[in-house]
């Protein structure tokens, strides 16, 4: 009678025992599968956690290494500005998730008929009341006002390089002037000179979260304007509006990284960019928040890793243990096989084959169950479980290592029993 046939007969006729060992294998492989999925999810979340701390570096023109000019306003730096090409080259470095640089000026806004839009709490001087502190942004999402939570998008979207003539205004101003998303208004830098007037489309509204009256912001001259009187427009539009002015440029840009752990690598790559003269620019790292949480994040990361590792390790030990007892319970059968002349090798192979046959349905079932379980959890806990995915790679790992371990465990379990002479086994059982 062939090896395969004996194996199949055992499995089918001792079906209750087969159910038992299948149950154990199923539980353990599901545990390991889900564990692997959890590990991957944890990795993703930890990276996101680190990234969410808003680590950035800013590249600014180095006024210390540049020349100085002077005019009626006093002295000013003649150091070169950052160009769009430079910023794009830097942001193309892997690991940078976004960047922004803003050109700030005061714009006068009017409706399409040319009537000036009045600020919130106007002073009574028409030429002052139509002034809005405006940022021409490459990506308003990454402006510090939004990142710090001082302002929050209320409706619509951020302005970025895909929007050429967009504007974001406060919801208070929008309410005051009955403006909504899609409406158009006009903007001009200095109405008393021959500056261009541009038509801008309202693409978003923001609301103020921070306390604007808090004097801590007074290091920034923008503090003279109520946040509600701010506006954010497309960087292209800003350049257009300021085309009459020569000294308009990007004094500094902030680049945000996906993973703070890569910061040093990224900066090194940035510094190797050839067409930027690094003598003229400084790089400042802003990783305050990250530095504060780094220790705790690393701890939590390690803990979860060890958690899953320990469980997997222990489960494997359990399997080996159970297999040992399993084989031991078949001592009598082994004795008989040996007595009738079946070689030790073939007996071992039969048991290995039985395990493999059992795995044939246990692993796929376990994979299916894990998929269903993780999807079920996802639908209940939507946001928080979206990163837990059981992948075919996980399945492959479990199948390969699981099979290897099963074979190893079967061999280890068989050793003490197969060592005996047939007579010893049989006399033990009588």
């Amino acid at each position, binding site marked *: 009678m062939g090896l395969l046939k004996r194996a199949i007969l055992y499995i089918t006729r001792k079906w209750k025992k087969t159910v*038992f060992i299948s149950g*154990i294998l199923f*539980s353990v492989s599901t545990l390991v599968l889900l*564990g692997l999925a*959890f590990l991957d999810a*944890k990795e993703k*979340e*930890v990276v*996101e*956690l680190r990234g*969410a*701390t*808003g680590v950035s570096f800013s590249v*600014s023109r*180095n*006024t210390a290494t540049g020349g100085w000019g002077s005019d009626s306003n*006093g002295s000013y730096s003649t150091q070169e500005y950052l160009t769009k090409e430079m910023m794009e080259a830097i942001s193309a470095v892997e690991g940078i998730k976004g960047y922004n640089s803003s050109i700030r000026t005061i714009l006068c806004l009017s409706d399409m008929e040319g009537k000036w839009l009045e600020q919130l709490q106007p002073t009574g001087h028409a030429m002052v009341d139509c002034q809005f502190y405006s940022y021409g942004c490459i990506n308003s999402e990454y402006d510090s006002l939004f990142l*710090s*939570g001082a302002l929050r998008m209320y409706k619509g979207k951020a302005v970025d390089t895909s929007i050429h003539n967009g504007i974001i205004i406060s919801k208070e101003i929008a309410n005051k002037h009955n403006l909504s998303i899609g409406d158009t208004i006009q903007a001009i830098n200095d109405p008393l000179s021959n500056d261009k007037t541009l038509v801008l489309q309202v693409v978003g509204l923001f609301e103020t979260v*921070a*306390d604007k*009256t*808090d*004097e*801590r912001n007074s*290091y920034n*001259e923008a503090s003279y304007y109520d946040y509600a009187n701010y506006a954010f427009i497309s960087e292209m539009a800003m350049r257009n509006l300021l085309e009459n002015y020569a000294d308009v440029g990007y004094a500094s840009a902030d680049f945000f990284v996906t993973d703070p752990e890569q910061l*040093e690598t990224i900066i*090194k790559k940035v*510094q190797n960019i050839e067409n930027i003269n690094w003598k003229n*620019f*400084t*790089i*400042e*790292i802003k*990783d*305050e*928040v990250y530095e*504060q*949480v*780094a*220790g*705790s*994040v*690393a*701890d*939590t990361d390690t803990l*979860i890793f060890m*958690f899953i590792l*320990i*469980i997997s390790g*222990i*489960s494997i*030990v*359990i399997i080996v*243990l159970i297999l040992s007892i399993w084989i031991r319970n078949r001592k009598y059968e082994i004795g008989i096989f040996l007595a009738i002349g079946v070689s030790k090798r073939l007996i071992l192979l039969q048991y290995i084959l039985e395990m493999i046959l059992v795995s044939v349905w246990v692993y796929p079932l376990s994979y299916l169950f894990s998929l269903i379980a993780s999807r079920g959890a996802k639908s209940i*806990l939507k*946001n*928080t*479980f979206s990163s837990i995915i059981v992948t075919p790679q996980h399945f492959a790992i479990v199948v390969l290592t699981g099979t290897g371990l099963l074979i190893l465990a079967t061999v280890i379990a068989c050793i003490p029993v197969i060592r005996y002479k047939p007579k010893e086994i049989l006399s033990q059982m009588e």
Partner: protein
Amino acid sequence: MNFLKRAYLYLVRKKVKTLFLFITLLIIATMLLTCISIQTAANNGVVNIKKSLRSYFTINAKQLPEGLNEKILKNILSIDGVNGEYILRSYTKAIYLDNNKNLLKIKTEGAATIPLGCENAGKIIGSSNSEKDSYFIEGGFKVIEGNHITLDQKNVILLHRDFAYKNGISLGDTIVIKNLENPELHVEVIVQGLFMNTREQNVGMTPSYDLYENVAFTDIVTSSKLIFGKLNNVFQYGDIYVDNPEQLDNIINNVEAISGVQWEKCILTKYDQGYQNTKRALETLQNIVFATMIVVMIVSFIILVLILTFSVRNRMHEIGVLLSIGMSKSAIVLQQLVEIFIITVFALVISYMTSFLLAEQVGNSLLAKTTKEYRVVEQKNNNNAVIEKDSELEKEVRMSHIEVTISELDYLVVWIVGMALCSITTVFAMIPIIKMKPKNILSQMS
């Protein structure tokens, strides 16, 4: 012979089977205990992360003519959830004089206006911790000589380097600052430090007193004297840090319930953007830990049930024999229960030690990793671009505050659940066998 003696004899004579069951139970109990302790530790890790995100709320009491005083601060600090860290601030304008009552010169080029009376005045920022002031952290200011101002100091001032040079002032000199609106309020202060701005100031609308060179920082006692004429610490703004950003709303409500303050005139604002950004990821991490725990428990449960059931079924023949000689079913079940009980007790007792050792290992690996994580960023590179850190706070090597331990409560829970589970499983596993007729049991086995 009673069931207790039979149970004892079985355990003692069927050593291998007993050992197997004992080891399995030990492993499962250890796994559960370790899991629980790691889960607790991981949750503590998340709590630490939330803490280290340094969320806070600001009380803006600028509209209160009497400001906020130490007593109110103490009340606030005693609210549950407030972690005791705070920064006090006040802002005003003052005229600068040397110690001979001579007016000092301020910078005027570039100012949009020089308001009347402010020809020798600058902005004064009173701070309990100047290092954390927004001018230094966000505005690009840096102390280049001397030291920052801290909570316990009094009658000290930090001046802009250019202002100091212009007026021939150095560290250690004494100057006088006089309240612009109320000249009777004046304070003598010692120059403790000089700072510089690293970025150009956008000066389109800036009045003279707001020009960087004309700004100065003092301690809270000084600003209290200067603004309120009071000797004790009265201040306009307080940034109060909390441990758990989720409690901010609650804490703010509790603050507004403090009597003796016209809270309607104050603005209380939450600052927890760091937490908001990381909230989802934190929640997911906690859920991962929780889910793992659940999976472990279910799997342990299944394995335990399977093994115990299997063990019991293997003794079917013995049960048949005992039934045939007239042993009552309850005696047979009790014997099994006693055996399982004894093994489980041993396993649980020893599992405390094994899981303790395991938890210790995990805890040790934490400390090791944390000290490695501490990064030092290069100050210069070979392309000569200067890399600066945004602030010069001294970074401490962050030692892990997370302990991986097994609490007594967890241990008790595992005990109770473990014993209950094993007993129930054993009984349930025996039910089908006990229900069978002894004849069938015996004929199955022979």
